[in-house]
């Protein structure tokens, strides 16, 4: 049965969990969490918890799917069966197949793939606990894992979802806001280059609202980017984006 829609914006203008509309959830990042992968990171946006690992550059079999002038990126976004309210069948859903594609494309823009012809760089994203924004949390984690693997990047990639709930544009929506809101717009950028590598809109916005939402996303992404750099600094020296 459809549960009744909860109030998403309170009388005082704050959100159901007490955040301001333009406020991120508490974010936690940790780089280099797995010993087997060449690079890895664990990222949490509130209760959303995602781990990413990168293997490669490594040889690709069968060879005929390799590229003569650059590496291919292989990317899998996958949800653990216990990550969702109801147990998720571990076989890849249509949603996971689509998200694996858009995440791959969001990361591909940042990787200097031409440095590794005929190789593959494999990005595995596992959603351990889902509470909204799993794809953007995954992109943020995957970018850290790529950097941790020592793969040269034009810039990091950071993502966040903006939503429209009870008519208000809000940053970094959680699952409740996604479920009962009017729009969900995940965005990923190479922040210091000012380039958008992922943009989806699930819902309806006026052109004006869209522009405002994109600005809100940019703001959130810049904050997340700062945290990414700190998380890497904790393990390494600071990453230097291509053109800043």
């Amino acid at each position, binding site marked *: *049965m459809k549960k009744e829609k909860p109030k998403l914006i309170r009388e005082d203008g704050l959100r159901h969990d007490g955040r301001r509309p333009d406020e991120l959830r508490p974010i936690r990042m940790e780089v280099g969490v797995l010993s087997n992968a060449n690079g890895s990171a664990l990222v949490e946006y509130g209760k959303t918890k995602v781990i990413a690992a990168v293997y490669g550059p490594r040889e690709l079999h069968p060879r005929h799917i390799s590229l003569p002038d650059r*590496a291919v990126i*292989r*990317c899998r976004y996958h949800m653990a069966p216990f990550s969702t309210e109801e147990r998720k069948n571990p076989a890849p859903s249509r949603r996971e*197949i*689509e998200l*694996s594609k858009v995440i791959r*494309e969001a990361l591909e823009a940042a990787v200097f793939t031409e440095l590794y012809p005929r190789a593959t760089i494999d990005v595995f994203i596992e959603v351990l606990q889902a509470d909204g924004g799993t794809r953007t949390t995954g992109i943020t984690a995957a970018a850290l894992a790529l950097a941790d693997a020592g793969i040269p990047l034009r810039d990091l990639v950071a993502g966040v979802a903006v939503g429209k709930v009870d008519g208000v544009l809000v940053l970094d929506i959680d699952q409740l806001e996604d479920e009962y809101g009017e729009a969900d717009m995940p965005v990923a950028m190479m922040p210091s280059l000012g380039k*958008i590598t*992922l943009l989806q809109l699930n819902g309806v916005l006026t052109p004006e609202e869209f522009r405002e939402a994109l600005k809100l996303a940019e703001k959130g992404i810049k904050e997340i980017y700062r945290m990414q750099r700190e998380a890497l600094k904790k393990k390494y020296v600071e990453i230097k984006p291509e053109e800043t």
Partner: protein
Amino acid sequence: MSTTPSNIPILPKLKKESIRTLVAKGIRIDGRKLNEYRKIVIEPNYIPKAEGSALVRMGDTVVLVGVKMEVGQPFPDTPNEGVLMVNAEFVPLASPTFEPGPPDENAIELARVIDRSLREIRVIDLEKLAIIPGEKVWMVWVDIYVLNHAGNLLDASSLAAMAALMVTKMPKVEVSEQGEVKVDKSVHVGSLPLNHRVVTVTVGKLDEYLLVDPTDEEELVLDAKLAVSVSEDGRIAGMQKMGPGDFTVDEVYKAVNLALETGKELHSILEEYVAKR
């Protein structure tokens, strides 16, 4: 697992360059302007045995959409609404790059983008499609069948889906006293109830230029694409960035404006199409 495509056809370097050079001058290899669609022809009711159907030709791209109405169970969280299902098949007849087998990531992405653009703005009035609330509802199956892939499949498919829904008829249905549902598909009782119309405009980016309705050859040269679904009242009903490249924030604004503008033309074509019938 999504993998960087490696089976894409190789476009001669010279052709790539001429596409690029022309676009910088504001024209296309087939003579079109950057904001110009190829010729669009919509044939309604191409599959008379389906409840709705339309064949769309967009240049050499051909997409057929059939709509089937079937009785099924509602989703648990919307017990009083019909169910919309969108599926796309990229059958190997349509292109040397399509393989037989279940839909790949491109077909799944296309179907899901169209699904969301129809679902979120509530193009179909699903609330009118309950038969026995909580138990039996109409399932609206929108099956997208690509017959010839000559570029811009998403816009052609989206247009064909909308055109098919606009001519979809409701089969007669009777509920017996014991609660048995009997459908008679040979008798129609009006049209599928629609709230809105949505079209999708995919804007391609090549260097710093933006263009609409890319051919398959142009798609091999584009840096990235941004698909924008536009409702008849000028709202954005969905978006999807596609391809491995990127957009600056400013380019995104321009692309959205181009899509909103061009979307009006596609809505006019739908208007003519429905008026002619």
